[in-house]
């Protein structure tokens, strides 16, 4: 038996994932591939480079907006939400 899974939520839905995963890994493990909508057209984005370089995988976690899901570890109680982050011009 491994350690107890992490319990978190995505857009309010309760989810679990093995301990030690990134937010991206935890979402993918639950079959969720898209967690960001950008621009007026609302085109979906998910993970792309997986190494913190492309910023496609931005997601909102609790009070933190627009963190890279491929870098940040998921924690118990995290409220993960669809992000609409897009850096302002300039």
């Amino acid at each position, binding site marked *: 038996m491994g350690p107890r899974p992490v319990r978190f939520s995505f857009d309010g839905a309760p989810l679990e994932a093995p301990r030690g995963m990134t937010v991206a*890994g935890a979402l993918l493990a639950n079959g969720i591939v898209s967690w960001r909508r950008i621009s007026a057209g609302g085109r979906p984005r998910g993970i*792309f*480079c997986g190494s913190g*370089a*492309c*910023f496609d995988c931005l997601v909102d976690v609790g009070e933190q907006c627009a*963190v890279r899901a491929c870098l*940040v570890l998921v924690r118990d109680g995290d409220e993960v939400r669809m992000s609409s982050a897009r850096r302002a011009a300039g």
Partner: protein
Amino acid sequence: MSGVIDVAVVGAGPAGIAAALAAGSAGCEVTLIDAGSGPGGQLYPPGMLFPGAGQVRGATPGQLPPSLARIRQAGQGRHLAATWVRRAVRDDGGVVTLWVGGPEGGAETTVEIRAVVLATGAAEVVLPFPGWDLPGVTTAGAAWTLLKSQGVTVGQRVLVGGTGPQLLPVAAALAQAGVRVVAVLEATPAPAAVPQAAGLAAFPGQLPEATGSAAILARHGVPVRTGYAVVACQGTSRVERAVIAALDTDWRSRPGSCWEETVDAVHLSFGAAPALDLPRSLGCAEVRPASRPASAVTCDAGQATSVPGVFAAGEVTGGGGAVLAELEGSLAGISAARYLNRLDPATYAERARGLRAQLDEPRRLAAGLAGAYPLRPGWLGWPDAGTVACRCEETPWSAVAAAVAEGARDLPALTAATRCGTGYCHGRFCGPALQYLVSAATGPPP
């Protein structure tokens, strides 16, 4: 952190680890700084051996290169993990100050050093086509990292495509994890300059599972098709279908050759583009090899860059795999030690001579491989007017094509006209393709 230390190594992949070990064993005080949660870099992601990884679906702990095993045993007292270098400045006295912190804000601290080894690696090149921004379409490296570090896969029925020998081990690892790999699509019709076998021979050190990738793919019934590419992806909230085309030798889609495959992920790699943010901020000279769309840091025979006290090794200098990266890292490490006078000239010369002798073969192989998988201009016909050229700014391909038609002939001009490359990723992902586009407009294809 206080006091100026001897050496900082930025990047804990094969090159950075070797540099840290070499400088450390020459008596330098070394700090190894890396964005990962542990040493290993993108080829050997830290979670690859994390306790319990074997229980996670698909996680197959690999055989680590000796240097990585050594640094993990050595402890992490001077290893700053999960740390990003935000800024680097070198003062007139030759002291380099690095501003470092966590990935998403928070406390920032400074590290002052007398010598720095840049082993910042590379980002994968992905060429744009309609739908390449759909969720489920990722770099091949992302698929590798997610699988190796966390045992997760993006899709269950996938295509692996692009060009270069790195596609095979990624596809093989996915197949072994139970993913249905519909095909590996190698765009280069016949990688003739270097036989496939020679390409694979380069890999045992580069990707431990690579030995026998072709055999693994065959065992899982995965076809490796040369001269094919994914030229469009379709779907609403994620990729649902991929359009595959047969290519001519210049990578133009052959008329009438297209068909669709139902997939839930597509993993792509067309080679690597060095990560130059840090070298550029320190003023290191770079060069763009004729055959490639991306620049690399230039080094002398001791891995010294154009800036005194700044050394570079591995993919950031142009790439060629983990074996080459480790040797370059070792050389950079002892060169940093020599720069700091921790090695006497005779000892340095002897060690450097030994390393350079070992560098010859992997360098020759790397050059052969780079020449065997060149990007061909036919890909310029894959994007349509609405294809996203710059993922961050959502610039459509029609805008960059118009800017080129109106005279933009280099990346700064294209950026000024279209905002491409001004977003989150600083042009790391649109840059190589757009560099290729403007180069093709000015002369023969690169």
